[in-house]
């Protein structure tokens, strides 16, 4: 854990980027982390062609890891196409987070990713397979 709560994580936690709810919006989804019940919602605005993200915001309360991860991930979304969002690799989300995530905190770190997938794919979006995401990673 020593290098989990690095300064930038705590900063993102205290002052998350892209926080709130966009109104109007094109896409919206809310979901929760089954291990702790934390809830997060996300709204996205698309360009006129309804193809690319022009703006994004997330809301809800959660732990430092879920907040920082959503804050960092949403910073990257503007300009991306829906297809790119669908193909977003959860491993990249973890890598962007930049701190070592083990299985116990994986769902925290991927809550934003899961909500984003829900917004793009719908309710059938699933939690990524733990073993796949952590394979070759920093897991214990």
């Amino acid at each position, binding site marked *: *854990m*020593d290098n*989990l*709560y690095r300064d930038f994580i*705590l900063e993102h936690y*205290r002052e998350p980027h892209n926080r709130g709810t966009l109104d109007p919006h094109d896409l919206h989804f809310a979901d929760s982390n089954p*291990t*702790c*019940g*934390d*809830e997060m919602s996300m709204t996205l605005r698309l360009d006129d062609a309804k193809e690319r993200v022009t703006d994004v915001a997330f809301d809800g*309360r*959660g*732990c*430092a*890891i879920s907040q920082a991860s959503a804050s960092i991930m949403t910073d990257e979304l503007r300009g991306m196409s829906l297809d790119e969002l669908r193909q977003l690799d959860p491993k990249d989300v973890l890598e962007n987070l930049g701190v070592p995530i083990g299985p*116990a*905190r994986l769902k*925290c770190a991927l809550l934003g990713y899961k909500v984003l997938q829900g917004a793009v794919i719908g309710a059938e979006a699933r939690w990524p397979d733990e073993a796949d995401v952590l394979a070759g990673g920093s897991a214990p």
Partner: protein
Amino acid sequence: MAIEQLATDILDGAALRADFPVFDRAHRSGQPLTFLDSAASAPKPRAVIEAVADAYGHHYANVHRGIYELSEDATARFEAARKAVAGFIGAPSDREVVFVRNATEGINLVAYSWGRTNIGPGDLILSTEMEHHANLVPWQQLAAESGATIEYVGITDDGHLDLDDLQLKLARGPRLLAVGHVSNALGTINPIEEISAMAHAAGAIVVLDAAQSVPHMPVDVVRLGIDFLALSGHKMLGPSGIGALWGRRELLEAMPPFMTGGSMISKVTLAGTTWAEVPLKFEAGTPAIAEAIGLHAAIDYLDAIGMENVRAHERFLFQHAWDALSAAPGVRLLGPASPDEHAAVISFVLDGVHPHDVATVFDGHGVAVRAGHHCAQPVMARYDLPATTRASFYVYNGLEDVERLLAAIRATRTLFGVG
């Protein structure tokens, strides 16, 4: 109550730790392990680990059906474990003790078997807002399937079961009250003798979730006046995969089986089947043999300490921890303040730090606690919290663990800049 006013501790937690190999393990934090998650599952003493290994190594065969020495030996040890469980909870007969995987299965057994026979459309089932999901969801499911109604007894602001609300709801004639002895999310010890008397007066049977009480205090099913009790071996120093359901014999005998298969039948023909006597009627298939034997060893270990002493020790630790945490800045405590009404399970919130982060930071200091909804989401909803951090104590804990908990809290507040 000030710490100075308390009696000295009755057990030496540090000395008992020597019986538990897990405390020899090097923790990645480099710190000694401060294990404060016994309410989730307890470490095992060497006596239990060795009893299981010995059972597998020298006394193992399938039970009940073998006409040879090894099977007779295994059967005798398995049945001796049943007697030990019966004795531990004051059951009038070991024939009233059904081995199950865990408390959850015990409660599901009652919900499926007693429930589907006795609950119909329009009937009322009572559970409480304080229950672990294991004593709530099975009743929700039963109600949904049978067309019954389910209602929940509320919790007061200070974490007691609301007995006025209970009385009101009992007046509506429920068939069954499902209630926990000790709340794993709040630590509350419910006054079960009183509650059973109220329920019985209203014509309801009482299903007691004793997962958090049997490991930590003397429990006597007759004195409590209940009808069913469920417990988990793994929370009382015993193996995983073994638990027990106790039920009053008349009730068990009148119930249909839950799972069916080998060992629980009297006669099987293609046209139909008749059942064995209780408790075998409820034990379909090969049971958790070595695990039952390991549970016996856990009971012997606890009996050697004495359950009154376990309770006194935990009461002592609770008082110290509660007083210290009450005095610590930024800590909000849940549940009743009185040590008579609160087991050594302390749920708290640290202002400005999410419980998941608390647990991770604590882990870095060698302090193992639970963070989350504790499988009691309605309790979290009741207090409008997403989650709490929970520290729970057992025989191997001591005041030094309270100190380390406090130090970890201070360190967490500093790290998050809220201290």
